[in-house]
């Protein structure tokens, strides 16, 4: 936006920091002072394309590219007539076709393609759908209406919350004063020890505070925009495809020793096998090697292959 210059007076943002670019339906920009000058009578023609324009159609240029502004204008105009909603169609495909038609018209008009025919098409459409256009205009779009409602509701809620906080604050102030007065009364008229009275009061105040803290603020069930918590989970991932087939069942590993049955790990420890092997030293124990492992290995090697029968190779 910095290097904008008015095409007519060549004023740039640098020369005049308060320069305001205006744009009209044709999409050609002009600075504010030029607009004032040229459209003194309320109407005139664009200095670039000579299209007759009205002064009150000028507005501040929002987008860098003035052609975008033009497109926005055209879209607004076209949509005023092409105001059908999805509900007005039988199928989604029809609605899509309709949207595509609208887009084509907007594109044609904003890029100066076949303007005469396109305008004719719009006229034709207007004539064909006059009743429907009028009806839809009255409706003003249900969605917009709902949105407004929501905003209104939110505003009310905010107001309520503010009031609540105010009330709470004043209440707690009053309470404090009351407590103080009660304490002073007690001290004045009671015959008890002053120290005791103060202590019991301190206790009471503490308890009251704890109770207050216990009151949990009411849980919110919706966002400020009115959307329920947890709604999002409905639009989660696709379910993981489950493969059909027989379930895996665990079969414990069996060791074919080709020899007599080995003593179990427990047997090695309880039946005194380990009495006949060297006990592990500290380093070996640190590594997890206990003497029963070595013992088991020796036994396994001794038993494995005892049933070996000579068989032909290959």
């Amino acid at each position: 936006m910095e290097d904008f210059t008015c095409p007519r007076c060549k004023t740039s943002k640098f020369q005049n920091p308060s320069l305001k670019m205006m744009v009209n339906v044709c999409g050609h920009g002009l600075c504010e002072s030029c607009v004032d000058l040229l459209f003194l009578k309320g109407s005139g023609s664009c200095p670039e394309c000579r299209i007759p324009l009205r002064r009150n159609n000028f507005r501040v240029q929002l987008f860098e590219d003035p052609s975008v502004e033009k497109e926005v204008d055209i879209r607004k105009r076209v949509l005023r007539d092409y105001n059908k909603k999805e509900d007005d169609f039988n199928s989604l495909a029809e609605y899509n076709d309709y949207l595509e038609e609208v887009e084509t018209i907007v594109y044609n008009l904003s890029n100066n393609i076949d303007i005469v025919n396109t305008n004719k098409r719009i006229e034709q459409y207007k004539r064909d759908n006059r009743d429907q256009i009028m009806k839809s205009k009255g409706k003003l779009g249900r969605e917009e209406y709902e949105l407004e409602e929501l905003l209104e509701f939110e505003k009310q809620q905010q107001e309520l919350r503010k009031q609540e906080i105010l009330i709470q604050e004043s209440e707690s102030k009053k309470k404090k004063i009351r407590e103080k007065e009660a304490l002073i009364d007690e001290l004045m008229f009671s015959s008890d020890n002053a120290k005791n009275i103060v202590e019991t009061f301190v206790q009471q105040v503490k308890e009251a505070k704890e109770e207050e803290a216990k009151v949990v603020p009411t849980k919110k069930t919706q966002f400020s925009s009115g959307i329920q918590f947890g709604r999002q989970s409905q639009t989660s991932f696709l379910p993981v495809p489950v493969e059909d087939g027989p379930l895996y069942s665990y079969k414990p590993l069996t060791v074919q020793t080709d020899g007599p049955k080995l003593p179990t790990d427990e047997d090695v420890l309880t039946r005194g096998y380990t009495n006949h092997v060297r006990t592990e030293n500290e380093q070996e124990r640190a590594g997890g090697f206990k003497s029963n492992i070595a013992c088991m290995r020796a036994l396994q090697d001794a038993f494995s292959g005892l049933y070996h029968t000579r068989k032909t190779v290959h």
Partner: protein
Amino acid sequence: MFSTSTQSKSWMFNNEDDLNKLRESANLKHIQTYGRHINEAARYDYFLTAEEEKIMVKRYEIRLRDFCKRFQPPMTRCVIGTAFHYFKRFYIHNSVMNHHPKEIMVTCIYLACKVEEFNVSIQQFVGNLKGDREKATDIILNNELLLMEQLNFHLSIHNPFRPVEGLLIDIKTRCTLNDPERLRPGTEHFLERAFLTDVVLLYSPSQVALAAVLHAASKLQENLDSYVTDTLFGVEGRGKLEELIEAVRAIRSMVKMVDATPDRNQQKLLDKKLEKCRNPENNPDSEIYKKRMQALLDEDDDLYHTISSTSDSLNTSALNMSVCASPEVT
């Protein structure tokens, strides 16, 4: 676990005849490849017979054992056992005339050291050898891959030593034998002799171990039969007992037959014969071998040259580029 090992799957044989047949076929294959120019009748005057080859292998097995015993630092028994296995396996499918047992023997021991995690460097290893150590280093390292290939890369070996320990633990725990440690010297002696036979190729290590323990017990006039039949095999192993008894008997008789003192005259004759008929391609003293090695070396050199020259050209091109890219100083 022996029952699932490659040893059980590929290196256990049915009986001695099968082994001898394999050795004969290796012998025949070698003669057919290298002895076509000699007529049938004179063939065995020049080449070794399968039987002679077997004698050679047996003799080098003894040398292998003696070498391992003298080795410094002292080897564990597992290294010796594994080396024996490798050596035996190699000469089942290979002829002595193709690869000299002297060379294969040291290679087997060197490989066994590695596999059994007995850590010696090649310098340390050849330090235990007599003669030209540099040549020995070359021979060992050149043959190492060949050996592994001939072993089908089945390098893990189940030796009967741990099964002996297991049996002794079991005997101490479940048998009332008085001081089972007495069995140890007899067992070790038996196993040492067993490695000079083919039993490790025919019976499982635990069977060999059991035979050794039983043999040691009988030497001490002890009887472990009831332990084997009742305690070890128990009720469920009853059907298998017969097979085992047969195996133990066979192992013991085979080990008894070991003749550890070979005929010296016959040895000398065989050595001379082998020196003549061995395959010169694999003899490190022959011209052919030297030429072959030189050719291999040259090939490597050529390869090296081409690689280095290409990398040189790359270097210069890189230099040129950097010259072009550097700003001109004028």
